[in-house]
């Protein structure tokens, strides 16, 4: 087994959804965006591991969380530092090294403070006390400070919750290449300064040493002639050259792990190959390990040893790159591979594209997250109330169906998913105001009338009269509207209409409805509770799909 440089276990990152202040107070559990959910992988030294997926699948979030540019919600990240030691040590002070003052110096200083205090006490008791106190206090402060200084930064292992100051030295070993070379270089810094910046932050090097190192690395990444390029500004460089500069900046600290986040996506076709070749060259020469993040399966095929396909925050298929390209297992992987345009006019082919678009990551689908779009879905894939609502949306594209649905089922507000059950409220009475509503509004009107009556009895009386009339008017109008729409409470009718609709729904959705039930005032569509299928082993890889 090759030694791992990075191990990620159950990595989860949820982002809070911003809500208006009042809603935030009223919502019991505010929604979160499930950017990354339970992602586990291990990265052996010298490997190129690809994280592939569409935008919003969480691949970039994984990359950034691994570097602790983002703090994970849960899970662990273990990074086996520069020398490859795997001694499991907790972040922070290593055991047995307390730092701080030695015992002797502590004794000596305490003694001298006591003596000084005593001497001053003889002259003036107050001054004596003050000297004693301030002396002891400063010893304690010095002690504390030097203890902190003495914390030896650890070299490796669990960085999930490491503090920023402890992370600093580790960051030397892990660097990132961002997607957009035009945005990741400071336009006010010359190329040379930009590349030297990490050296200034991390090492104590002289200007001359820094410049030599920068020139050497510039030559290595093909920014030549380095002496001339050193003083140029990003605006004077082409996209490819800028990306070379970004790579040089990542390389200057001689890292072991590089997270490359879409390093060629913004570049023209004709120079992509050059940058990829450069990355492969650097890897061989310096024994690098890459976490290669991309949406482009074709690029990943070229460069990656292993790949993980991500969908809505989860890895759906992971394994040897060759095996996955030869025979993709997960329906999503197949869809992704099938959608890539091939630059050959004879290869135009009929594609089976997944339906619709990626769902909202704040409310990911139950079961397999791909099931609503999957062309080969089965009833066991995690169908749930939301799928019925989506199907109603799809039906509404047809005018006749939309009108029928609206008339019988009522507005969407009456339908509410509740776990594995869809509750459709059937209004009990005509749609006028309820007795309670009428009584409450009448009371409010009378109270307001009384208040104003204290000022002027006529105004008060007028207010009460007009108020009562408008309550009655609202009630009458609402009744009339309900009558006009012809909506009468009939749960049976709602039920049979739903049965009709489900009869036309796609096979797996129809089959997964366990029961249609009517209760007083509600029609229930019940599904079996489902779980995520989990990663299953199938032919040299792991797939998250019930088919395997």
């Amino acid at each position, binding site marked *: 087994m090759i030694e791992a440089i990075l191990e990620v276990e159950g990595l989860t990152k949820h982002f809070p959804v911003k809500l208006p202040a009042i809603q935030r107070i009223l919502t019991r559990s505010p929604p979160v965006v499930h950017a990354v959910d339970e992602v586990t992988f291990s990265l052996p030294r010298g490997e190129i591991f690809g994280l592939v997926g569409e935008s919003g699948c969480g691949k970039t979030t994984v990359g950034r969380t691994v570097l602790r540019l983002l703090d994970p919600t849960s899970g662990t990240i273990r990074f086996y530092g520069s020398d490859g030691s795997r001694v499991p040590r907790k972040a922070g002070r290593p055991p047995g090294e307390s730092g701080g003052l030695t015992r002797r110096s502590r004794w000596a200083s305490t003694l001298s403070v006591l003596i000084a205090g005593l001497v001053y006490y003889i002259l003036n008791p107050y001054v004596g006390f003050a000297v004693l106190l301030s002396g002891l206090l400063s010893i304690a402060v010095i002690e504390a400070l030097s203890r902190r200084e003495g914390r030896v930064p650890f070299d490796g292992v669990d960085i999930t919750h490491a503090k920023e100051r402890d992370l600093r030295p580790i960051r030397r070993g892990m660097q990132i290449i961002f997607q957009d070379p035009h945005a990741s270089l400071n336009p006010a810094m010359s190329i040379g300064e930009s590349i030297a910046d990490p050296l200034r932050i991390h090492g104590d090097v002289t200007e001359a040493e820094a410049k030599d190192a920068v020139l050497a690395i510039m030559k290595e990444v093909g920014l030549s002639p380095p002496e001339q390029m050193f003083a140029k500004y990003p605006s004077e460089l082409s996209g490819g050259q800028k990306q070379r500069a970004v790579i040089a900046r990542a390389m200057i600290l001689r890292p072991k792990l590089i997270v490359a986040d879409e390093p060629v996506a913004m570049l023209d076709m*004709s120079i992509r190959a050059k940058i990829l070749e450069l990355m492969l060259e650097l890897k061989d020469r310096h024994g690098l390990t890459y976490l290669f993040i991309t949406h482009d399966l074709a690029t990943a095929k070229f460069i990656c040893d292993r790949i993980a396909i991500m969908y809505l925050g989860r890895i759906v298929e992971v394994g040897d790159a060759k095996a996955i390209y030869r025979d993709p297992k997960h329906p999503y992987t197949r869809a992704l591979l099938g959608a890539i345009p091939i630059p050959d006019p004879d290869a135009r082919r009929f594609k089976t594209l997944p339906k619709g678009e990626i769902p909202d990551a704040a409310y990911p689908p139950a079961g397999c997250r791909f099931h609503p779009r999957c062309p080969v879905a089965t009833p066991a894939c995690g169908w749930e109330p939301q799928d019925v609502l989506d199907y109603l949306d799809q039906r509404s594209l047809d005018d006749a169906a939309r009108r029928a649905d609206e008339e019988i089922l009522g507005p969407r507000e009456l339908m509410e998913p509740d776990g594995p059950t869809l509750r459709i409220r059937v209004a009990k009475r005509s749609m006028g105001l309820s007795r309670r509503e009428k009584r409450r509004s009448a009371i409010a009107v009378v109270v307001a009338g009384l208040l104003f009556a204290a000022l002027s009895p006529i105004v008060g009386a007028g207010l009460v009269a007009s108020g009562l009339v408008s309550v009655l008017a609202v009630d009458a109008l609402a009744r009339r509207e309900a009558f006009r729409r012809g909506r009468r409470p009939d749960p049976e009718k709602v039920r049979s209409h739903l049965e009709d609709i489900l009869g036309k729904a796609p096979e797996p959705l129809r089959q997964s409805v366990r029961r249609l039930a009517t209760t007083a005032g509600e029609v229930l569509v019940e599904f079996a509770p489902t779980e995520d299928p989990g990663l299953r082993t199938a032919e040299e890889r792991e797939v998250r799909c019930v088919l395997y």
Partner: protein
Amino acid sequence: MEPVLEVGDLKVYYHTKRGPVHAVDGITFDVALGETLGVVGETGCGKSTLGKAILGILPPRTRLEGTLRFMGRDLPKLPKDELRRLRGKDVGLIFQDPMTRLDPLMSVEDHFIETIRAHESVSKNEARNRAHRALASMGIPESRLGDYPHEFSGGMRQRIMIAMVLVMNPKLLIADEPTTSLDVIVEAQILEILEDLKRAYRMSLLLITHNLGIVAEVCDRVAVMYAGRIVELGAIRDVFKRPIHPYTRGLLSSIIHLESKELSSIDGLPPDLVDPPSGCRFHPRCAYAKAVCEAEDPAWVEYRPGHFAACHFGKDFL
């Protein structure tokens, strides 16, 4: 039959402090009725400028020479208000970035009503009904008509843009990188929609893109642009299977696709268009360049029926 669009020796020079930028420098082609012509090239080759020139939306102080005829009408000579009536109605445009091309303060419905009523005097209700139908054909339900652009995903926004162009039933659709900011699956969905529309409406399509894979999938003919000029033009199969110009060959072999066996790229950098290279503009990067390439402009030669290229040694590459 008369072509929908005729472009003759078109030149567009942008005004800058450093002097004129030869963004488009003498290009000639036409687009037939119901045809899809792809225009491919890399960043800065002038392909987007071409689209803007056709629509007459170039920045001020830009010099435009040559002919641009749409359905027999000379576009640069049309009065402003006539051009405005044409634009959006007979010539539709789909931009690269659907995120920024819809007004964030207007609901989708208002976008449609504004567009339709700018060109036709119809009632708001009529406009609304047409918007419903156009959006339903793109798979967007009526319930979302009142929503604002930020409530839609990228793919949906691009479908809204397409629906907005289609309500006017244009003769020519200019699509400038219509799928570049979209994911592959959504991209494939949009391309499928474009193909269906072409067939249903007999619309001509000018597809501007850097992605040769897309061109291969949807275009009938393709024009390859380099540094403001078309270097090769021909039927899709000719250009992809039997390319003539060394730049086309380089571009084709540098695509990284699922079947590619090795990485290759074109050496050098694209030229500065303020001071473009003499003769064949590709000569500084061309592996086959000889003295004549630097000295003389290559002639535009029809090497096969309908397959043109501008290369001094075109015959050798046949």
